[in-house]
C-alpha cells in the first residue's frame, strides 16, 4: 500500500554508513595512528620566564649602593600538585605547615593552571637542598630571581624599594604579571624601565612527567631576557652616611646639592630605616611596622614635607627686591623688640641696609622690603602676582622637575587665595606681610630650600636637582642625563650683595658660633620657625666655599628650637666633612652633640604624658 516504504532502507543505510565512517575514523586516530598519542604527551606547553638581573646602583664615586643576590622562589601549579610529604617539604624550606597550606590555598584561588609563588626568596643553600628533592613534589617548580642587597644600609628613601606587583599594576601594564617585582618608590620607581631590563619568555614542551622535551616551534616564539641597566647616582655615599648619622634621634632632613650641576650629594630624611627590611621573607611584617610608626620613617621628608621656611626665606625675598631694583641702596629703620607690626628679636644698628639685614636677620627690614616690592606695582594684586611668579621661577611653590619620585610642590599662596579670604581689594601688602619673613601660608620642601641656595651660589641659575647622573649601557658606555637649566638673571652684583650678607651671617651674625669653620668661607642663613604645636623648628641653608661653591645645603630639623641650635651645626659639619675631609678638633663637640642628641625620645615622652 505504501509504495515508498522500501525507502526506509536507504535512510537506515545512510545512518549505518555514517556510523561506520565515524567508527573507522575513530579506529584510525585511536588505534592505528600513534602520532596523536605522541602529541598528547607533548601537549603540555610550559611557559618559562627568565627574570633578568635588575640593574645595580652606584654612588658618584663608584661605591655600590644596591646590588643583587640570587634567591629562589618556589612556585606551584595547583592542578599538578599531588598529595606530598608536607612535613618533609616544610623542614627543607623552613616554613611551618600552616603557612604553606595557606599559600597553596591562595595559589589555587588565583589559578589552578598557572604558576603562583608559594614560598619566596629562598637562599642558595636551601635551594640546593630542595633542588635534589624536587622530584618528590610534582607541581612544584623553582624560579630563580634576584634580591636587592644594600651594602651600606643607607639612603633608604632615595633608593626606594622593589615590591611585588599588585592587581592594579598588572591591569595597567601588560608587561607585568603575578609575582613580578617592580620599583615602588625612589630611584627604583623613577628608573624602573631602565633598571628592570626585559623579561625573557621561552616556551618548552613538557611531557606528563614535566620533563622538558625541547623548545616549542624551535624557540621561534621565545624572547631573550635583557639585563637591567646600571645607574650611576649623584649621591656621595660617605657624605650621605655621615648626614644620616648626624640626623639620628631627630625628625628632619638634609639636602645637599652640587650647585654647578644640580647633582644631589646628600638627601637624607630622619627617622629612616634599613632598606634591607623590604627584602626577604620578613618584608611584609617590617613594612607594617614601619607603616604604623607614629614618626613615619617611610616618609621622605626632604622632598615631600612642606615647611614654613622662616628666615631662610629672606634670601628669596631679598633676591626679588633686588630684581625689582628697590633694595640696592635703601636703609630701613628697626626698633628692635618694639618694632611693629613684626618684632625684631636681634640687637643691631638702625637704620640698616640689605647686607646687614641679612646678617642680623632683621624682621623689620624685610617686611618693609616686602612692602617696597609690592608698592613697586600699581596694585597689591599685581605686586603679589609678580612676587609669586618670581618664586615659581626659583622652583619654589612647584615641583622643580628633576628625577625625584613623589616630589611635592610646596605652596606659595596665590592671588585667588587671598581674594577668597579677604575679598578682592580687601587686602594690601601689610595684610600679607608674614610672607616677607617666610611664615604664614608659605610652605617649602627642604629640596626647594637647598635649590634656592644653589641658585644664589651659582649667582643666577640652577639645574633641576637630580639623583642619577648617568645610565650604564650594556657595552659599559654611559649616557649622561641632562636636566633642565633655569636662569634667573638678576645681575651678578645683586647676587654678590646677598652672598656678602650670607657670609656675614656665619662670620659675625646669627650662625657665627655654630657654623664657622676655620679657613673656609661658608655663606649661610638661619631660620627659626614659630610652631604653634611645640618647639620652634630649626632651619639652616648654606653654600661653600664662597668662590666657586662646591656644595649648597639645606637642613631642617623639626622642633629643633632655633636655627643655630641643630640645623646650622649639622649643615656646617657636612660642609666641613665634604670640603676638608675631616672635622677639626675644635668642632668635634658639635659632632658629638649631634650624634648624641635625641629629640625623638623627648617627643615620645611628651606625647606619652
Amino acid at each position, binding site marked *: 500500500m505504501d*509504495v*515508498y*516504504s522500501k*525507502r*526506509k532502507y*536507504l*535512510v*537506515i543505510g*545512510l*545512518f*549505518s554508513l*555514517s*556510523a561506520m*565512517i*565515524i*567508527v573507522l*575514523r*575513530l*579506529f584510525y*586516530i*585511536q*588505534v592505528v*595512528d600513534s*602520532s*596523536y*598519542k605522541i*602529541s*598528547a*604527551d607533548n*601537549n*603540555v606547553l610550559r611557559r618559562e620566564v627568565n627574570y633578568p638581573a635588575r640593574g645595580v646602583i652606584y654612588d658618584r664615586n663608584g661605591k655600590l649602593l644596591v646590588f643583587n643576590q640570587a634567591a629562589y622562589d618556589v612556585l606551584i601549579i595547583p*592542578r599538578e600538585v599531588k598529595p606530598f610529604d608536607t612535613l618533609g617539604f616544610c623542614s627543607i624550606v623552613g616554613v611551618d605547615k600552616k603557612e604553606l597550606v595557606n599559600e597553596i590555598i591562595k595559589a*589555587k584561588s588565583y589559578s*589552578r*593552571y598557572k604558576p603562583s609563588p608559594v614560598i619566596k626568596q629562598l637562599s642558595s643553600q636551601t635551594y640546593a637542598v630542595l633542588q635534589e628533592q624536587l622530584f618528590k613534589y610534582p607541581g612544584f617548580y623553582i624560579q630563580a630571581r634576584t634580591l636587592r642587597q644594600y651594602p651600606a644600609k643607607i639612603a633608604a628613601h632615595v633608593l626606594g624599594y622593589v615590591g611585588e606587583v599588585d592587581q592594579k599594576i598588572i591591569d595597567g601594564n601588560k608587561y607585568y604579571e603575578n609575582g613580578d617585582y617592580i620599583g615602588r618608590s625612589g630611584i627604583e620607581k623613577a628608573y624602573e624601565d631602565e633598571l628592570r631590563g626585559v623579561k625573557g619568555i621561552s616556551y618548552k614542551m613538557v611531557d*606528563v612527567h614535566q620533563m622538558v622535551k625541547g623548545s616549542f616551534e624551535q624557540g621561534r616564539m621565545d624572547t631573550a631576557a635583557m639585563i637591567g641597566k646600571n645607574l650611576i647616582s649623584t649621591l656621595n655615599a660617605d657624605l650621605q652616611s655621615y648626614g644620616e648619622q648626624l640626623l639620628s634621634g631627630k625628625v628632619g632632613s638634609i639636602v645637599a646639592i652640587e650647585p654647578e650641576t644640580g647633582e644631589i650629594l646628600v638627601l637624607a630624611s630622619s627617622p629612616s630605616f634599613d632598606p634591607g627590611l623590604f627584602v626577604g621573607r620578613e618584608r611584609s611584617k617590617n613594612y607594617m611596622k614601619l607603616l604604623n610608626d607614629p614618626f613615619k620613617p617611610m616618609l621622605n621628608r626632604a622632598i615631600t614635607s612642606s615647611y614654613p621656611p622662616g628666615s631662610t626665606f629672606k634670601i628669596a625675598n631679598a633676591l626679588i627686591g633686588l630684581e625689582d631694583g628697590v633694595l640696592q641702596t635703601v636703609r630701613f629703620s628697626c626698633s628692635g623688640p618694639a618694632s611693629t607690626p613684626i618684632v625684631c628679636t636681634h640687637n643691631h644698628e638702625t637704620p640698616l641696609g640689605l647686607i646687614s639685614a641679612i646678617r642680623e636677620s632683621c624682621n623689620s627690614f624685610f617686611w618693609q622690603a616686602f612692602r617696597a616690592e609690592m608698592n613697586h606695582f600699581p596694585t597689591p594684586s599685581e605686586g603679589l602676582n609678580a612676587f609669586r611668579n618670581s618664586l615659581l621661577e626659583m622652583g619654589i611653590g612647584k615641583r622643580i622637575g628633576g628625577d625625584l619620585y613623589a616630589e611635592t610642590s610646596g605652596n606659595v599662596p596665590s592671588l585667588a587665595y587671598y581674594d577668597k579670604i579677604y575679598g578682592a581689594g580687601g587686602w594690601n601688602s601689610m595684610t600679607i606681610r608674614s610672607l616677607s619673613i617666610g611664615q604664614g601660608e608659605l610652605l617649602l620642601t627642604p629640596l626647594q630650600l637647598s635649590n634656592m641656595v644653589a641658585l644664589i651660589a651659582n649667582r643666577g641659575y640652577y639645574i633641576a636637582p637630580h639623583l642619577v647622573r648617568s645610565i650604564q649601557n650594556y657595552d659599559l658606555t654611559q649616557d649622561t642625563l641632562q636636566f633642565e637649566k633655569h636662569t634667573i638673571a638678576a645681575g651678578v652684583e645683586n647676587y654678590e650683595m646677598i652672598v656678602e650678607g650670607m657670609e656675614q651671617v656665619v662670620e659675625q651674625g646669627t650662625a657665627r658660633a655654630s657654623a664657622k669653620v676655620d679657613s673656609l668661607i661658608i655663606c649661610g642663613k638661619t631660620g627659626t620657625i614659630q610652631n604653634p604645636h611645640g618647639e620652634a623648628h630649626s632651619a639652616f641653608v648654606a653654600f661653600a666655599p664662597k668662590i666657586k661653591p662646591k656644595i649648597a645645603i639645606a637642613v631642617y630639623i623639626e622642633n629643633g628650637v632655633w636655627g643655630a641650635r641643630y640645623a646650622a651645626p649639622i649643615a656646617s659639619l657636612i660642609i666641613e666633612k665634604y670640603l676638608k675631609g675631616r672635622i677639626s678638633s675644635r668642632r668635634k663637640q658639635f659632632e658629638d652633640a649631634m650624634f648624641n642628641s635625641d629629640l625623638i625620645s623627648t617627643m615620645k615622652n611628651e606625647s606619652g604624658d
Partner: protein
Amino acid sequence: MKSNNNIWLNLDWLTVFLYLTLVFLGWLNIYAAVYNEEHQSMLDMGQKYGKQLIWIIAGIIIAIMVFTVDSKFYAAFAYPIYAVTIILNIAVLFLGKEVNGARGWFEFGNVALQPEELGKFATNLALAKCISQFDFKIQKMRSYLILFSLIALPAILIIMQNDTGSALVFAVFVFVFYREGLNGMVLFWGFAAAALFILALLLNEFQLLLFLLIISIAAYGVLRQSLKEALIGFTSIMGTLGVLWLVDSIFHLGGTPLQLLLITLTISAILVIVYAILRRIPQVWRILLFFIFAIGISMSVNYFYKQILAPHQRDRIDQVLGIKIDKLGRGYNVNQSKIAVGSGGFLGKGFLEGTQTKYNFVPEQSTDFIFCTVGEEWGFLGSTVVVGLFLWLLIRLITLAERQRSQFSRIYGYGVACILFFHIAINISMTIGLAPVIGIPLPFFSYGGSSLWAFTVLLFIFLRFDATRTENLR
C-alpha cells in the same frame, strides 16, 4: 482510566532505556570533563555536572508531561505551535540576550532559554501536518515551495540569530521528504551538488573540468550501456587535447592547459551535439544538462565561498579539507580535540583519568566537544559503544516510525530520527576532524538544559504517538 493505562503499557521501553542510558553516559562525561579534586561531590550544584543533573531531572519530568498529553493535541495544534515558535524566534532577535556571539537567548532570572530549540520540533510537527493532508501531493512544484518555506522560515530566523550551525539542521528534512515520495533525483542532485562543492574547493579549474568530463563520459557509457562508445569518446577527446598541446608547444602559442581543455571541450561539444541530432541519441541531452549544471555549481562555489561565508566559516571548511593547516589558530579546537580522542587509544585512559580534557586544552569541553572526553577516557571501545547506542536509537526510531498507522506520526518519527542523526553525525564528525566545526550539541550528552529538553520533547512526543499508534492522526 483504561486508556491512560494503555499508554504506559504501550510506551516503547527500549527507546526509553536507550534515552536514559545516553543521558546518564553524557552526565558521567560532563562530570569527567570538569572534574577536579576540589569539587568531587557529584551533586555539587555549583558545578556543571550538578546543574546538568537538575536539567536531567527536569527533563524527565518534562518527558512525562509531554508524554501524557493526548496525541490529538499535537496534531490539532501543529500549525499554532509552529506560528508561536516563529513569533518567539522573531521576538528574541529584539529582546534576546547575546551569548557567545549568538543573539538567541531569553533570560528569566537564572534560566536562559533558546527559542530556536523549539524550532526543530515545531517545524517537524508542521511538516508532518502539511504532508499528511489528503490532497497533498509531494511531487508538485507547489508542494516543494510550501515545504521549502516551512523549513526556510525558522532556518533564516536562526541564521539571523547568528547560529548558522543550528540552521543547517533543517536541511536534514530532505530525507523525510524522500521517504514520503520526493523524487529520488532531488536527493541525487543534492548529493552531487555537495560533492561538487567540495571538489571545487579541492581541485583547480583544469582538474575539475577533466574530472567532470570523465564522469560525463562514464555516465554516457552507462546510459547507452556501451563501453565501446565511451572509450571512443574518451580517446578522441584526449587525442584532440594532445594534438592541441603539441601544436601549442611547437609554435609557442603559450596557451594554458585550461585554455587548451576549454577549446577541446567546445569542439567536442559541437561534434557531440551534431552526432546526437543525426543519430537521435536522447541520453546525450541529459549528460550535457548535467555537465552544464556541474560547471554552474562549481563556478558559483567560488562566489559563495568568498562572498557569503564568514572568514571563520571558510576556515573551518578549509581545516577539514586540509587546505589550510593552522594548529594554533582556527584549527586549534579540532587539533586539540583530535589529540584528546586519539590519545585514548583502544581501551581509553579510564574514567576521570584523561589529561588532555582536564588541562582545558580542548575548549567547549562540556558542550560541543563532549565527545572528546568519551574518546580520551573510554578509548575506541567506549566510543564505538556510544556510536553504536546512538545508531541503535536511530534505527529503533525508524522502525517505530514505520509501524505507525497514520502518515502524520510516521513523518514526525522520521523527522525526529533525522534531526537526531544530523546532530550526532555532525557533532562527532567535527570532534574527529571529519566535518567542519559547526556549533551544534551532541544530543543527550552535551551540557545544557535547553538542548537536552528540546531533544527530550522531540523524542517523547513521538513516543506518545507510538503508544497510541492505532489512532489515526491527521
